[in-house]
């Protein structure tokens, strides 16, 4: 059980760490001060969640790797996030649509994970569920504002939906690891979340006058460590401080 749960925790953590870092790249670049703060808040929430999941993973592994070791001293090939979260931010519309897609997924995932038989995991999920609820509310409001806004904001939002859609399928791919931890009552099988995700996302896209793409082909690979070229570049920036000054505190 230990080995599959470790990987399951890495997947939970890495989705949030990578997207949290991507979102943090907006700090100082938001369209207005209020949204700059909102994006930074969302980024920090997700990095905080990642930190808790990694701490738990490190304790479970028993190799004396704490959350910092797992975040800053793993290579891209050892990251287990979905490809969706590592893509560069693009424009504000792309950032918001991506965050919306992920946050709805995260909300459903955390809601299910709250009943984990692992008390630590259930506790983190309860905290993260509240945060994800707000992220969904904030992003859904923006998706509708942009989609049902001007001709340009609509076009950009639709372009983001079209570009990102092929990366959403991977969120719901379950392998033996997911099935094993789910069967043990500890983790969540992501494939069980897909229909609710499609329903919730579909409702908001309709309200935003955006079209749900009819795409069958879905990208995959991140859960097994096969990433786009973007992740390595992102990690080099994210990890350089910790690697240049190992053990530094501030």
């Amino acid at each position, binding site marked *: 059980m230990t080995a599959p749960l470790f990987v399951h925790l890495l997947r939970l953590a890495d989705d949030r760490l990578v997207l949290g870092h991507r979102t943090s790249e907006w700090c100082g670049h938001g369209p*207005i*001060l*209020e*949204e700059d*703060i*909102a994006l930074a*808040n969302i980024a920090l929430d997700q990095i905080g969640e990642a930190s808790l999941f990694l701490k738990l993973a490190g304790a479970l592994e028993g190799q004396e790797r704490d959350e910092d070791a797992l975040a800053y001293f793993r290579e891209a090939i050892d990251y287990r996030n979905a490809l969706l979260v590592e893509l560069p931010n693009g424009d504000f519309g792309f950032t918001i649509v991506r965050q919306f897609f992920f946050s709805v997924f995260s909300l459903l995932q955390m809601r299910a994970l709250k009943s984990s038989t692992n008390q630590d995991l259930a506790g983190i999920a309860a905290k993260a569920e509240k945060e994800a609820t*707000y992220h969904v*509310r*904030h992003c859904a*409001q923006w998706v*509708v*504002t942009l989609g049902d806004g001007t001709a340009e904001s609509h076009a950009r939002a639709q372009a983001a939906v079209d570009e990102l859609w092929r990366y959403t399928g991977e969120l719901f791919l379950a392998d033996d690891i997911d099935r094993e931890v789910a069967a043990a009552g500890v983790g969540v099988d992501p494939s069980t979340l897909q229909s609710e995700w499609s329903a919730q996302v579909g409702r908001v896209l309709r309200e935003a006058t955006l079209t749900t793409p009819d795409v069958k082909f879905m990208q995959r690979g991140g859960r097994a460590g096969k990433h786009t070229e973007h992740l390595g570049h992102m990690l080099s920036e994210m990890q350089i401080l910790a690697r240049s000054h190992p053990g530094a505190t501030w």
Partner: protein
Amino acid sequence: MANQHDTTTTGDAAADSQWPLWEVFLQPPKGEPHQHAGSVHATTAEQALQNARDVYSRRGEAVSIWVVPSVAITASTPEDMGPFFDPGNDKPYRHPQFYKVPRGVRVF
């Protein structure tokens, strides 16, 4: 978003290409009345509420938030100072301390 406020008529805000301004009132956790916290820019009431949450109430400062379009507030001006506020100073009977408490009540 049922309670969307129509802000399309806020001429002043549109003129400087800023989003409309909203005043933010927070109710502290202990149940005191809402107090003015500051202001945020937003295009809708829902967005104003979210921005207020993100800017002013991330550290447990509030259990309730009100947002009000700034243009909906009518404020007194400095010129009102005299006529509005000074006349009260020579009317001590407006303060409860002016009245003697009867002896029968005093025991409480």
